[in-house]
């Protein structure tokens, strides 16, 4: 009885090991199963999901116009103080004073990509862009001003 158990122990053990080896061996001879992505080489084909939260950007149209009213909703919504809205007062041709943004300062190094600012924005002025190659050699380069120089607010956005 003891001998029988002993032999069946050895047999079961060895077969279980061989099963595992068959599996790994199968993968060894099937190079098609390889899933490695050769990252810097596949930049052309690499496409991230549209919704990927990479950084906050402010879309501008062809007339260099954005839709940010400078309401600071994003600044209030941000948990980390990533966004700072600097406003100024512009005089419209009619002579009315109007609040507009001077600069929307965005500090990428503080951002956690939580999307709360985008959700809070009433005029869809900012959105998340699917970029991810953010590394720079100088930390100050991570502080960005989102509105382009000379840009102004689109007509009809209050």
């Amino acid at each position: 009885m003891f001998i029988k158990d002993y032999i069946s122990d050895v047999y079961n053990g060895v077969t279980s090991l061989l099963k595992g080896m068959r599996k790994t061996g199968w993968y060894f001879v099937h190079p098609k199963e390889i899933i490695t992505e050769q990252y810097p080489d596949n930049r052309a084909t690499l496409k991230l999901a549209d919704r990927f939260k990479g950084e906050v950007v402010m879309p501008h149209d062809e007339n260099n116009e954005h839709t940010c009213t400078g309401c600071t909703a994003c600044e209030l919504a941000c948990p980390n103080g990533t966004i700072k809205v600097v406003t100024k007062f512009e005089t419209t041709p009619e002579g009315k004073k109007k609040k507009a943004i001077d600069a929307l300062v965005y500090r990428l190094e503080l951002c956690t990509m939580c999307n709360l600012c985008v959700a809070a924005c009433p005029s869809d002025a900012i959105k998340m862009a699917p970029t991810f190659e953010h590394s720079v050699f100088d930390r100050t380069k991570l502080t960005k001003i989102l509105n382009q120089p000379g840009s102004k607010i689109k007509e009809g956005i209050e």
Partner: protein
Amino acid sequence: MFSLEGLTAMIQNWLAANFNPTMILVLQCVIVILLAITLFAVLGLVLVLMERKVAAHIQIRLGPNRVGPGGMFQTVADTLKLIMKEGLTPDKADKLLFNLAPFVVMMVGMLLLAPIAFAKNFQIWDLNIGVLYISSISSLSVIGILMAGWASNNKYSLLGAMRSGAQIVSYELSAGFAVLSIIVFTGSLQITDIINSQENGWWLFKGHIPAIISFVIFIIAVTAETNRAPFDLAEAESELTAGFHTEYSGMRFALFFLAEYINIFIVCAIGATLFLGGWMPLHIGHWEGFNHLMDYIPSSVWFMGKTFFLIFLIMWFRWTFPRLRVDQLLNLEWKYLLPISLFNLLLATVIAIYGWHF
């Protein structure tokens, strides 16, 4: 037909024609040493790359593929990096032993090269107790590992070294018994005799069940002796960080790393010699045509092919199995492998006495 035999004869003739006997001996030694060191370097580069590629393909990855075509020069780059790194010696370490240990481990590998027949009549030293020499020298490697573990003044290293000591000493036994069952068939300890006895078939096929069992035991035992997974308890990455070579860096670490691969090569070469006929081509009974065809393949290719097949097998183990626990490791040896190999030796002896083998 390309043959290393002709090459050695040519060098021998040239030396005999130009120098006196003492000088010939000195020059021969120099040539052998140079060849051995070159072999070490090349083997290290090739085997490390092979391991990484095998691992990668098993793990559905590509493996090194940046340096050179297909990552061919990856290990060269690694070696350069290791040479340039600073070799740190920990405070309060036993400096002498700490520095000596990697060389002891390397030296064992070098000594073991002596009796291995790389091709037909291509051998450093065909001594008449070849197998005995191998098994006695190979057990010396434990000294180097113990030295490294003790001298590092690190608790992980010490634990690793102690594990390794227990492991190598126990697995020497079953490796020895596995070898012994082939010695029983051949009746000689000389490597040349053992290879020549396999002219009409390898011992793995000729020796019936005992040869197969002892082959399996041999492979398990040498995997354990070279501290390879699933028996890599001396290093046991997830338990002891890096085991006995935790404190080593730079070139000293590289020597340990190299020694590991050299040891694998050597034990696989011994396995190939004993069980798979060394450089002897595959001969099947009386199939004259087939045997002639096989003879056409150079003997060195046969030897390397068999050795690398065994190396691949050991790598395959490593990337498939989990690691054993230290008490299970010793249980496996003393409760399973040793009784089986003792019984197997008895069986082999009976078969050899009655001449039942082919």
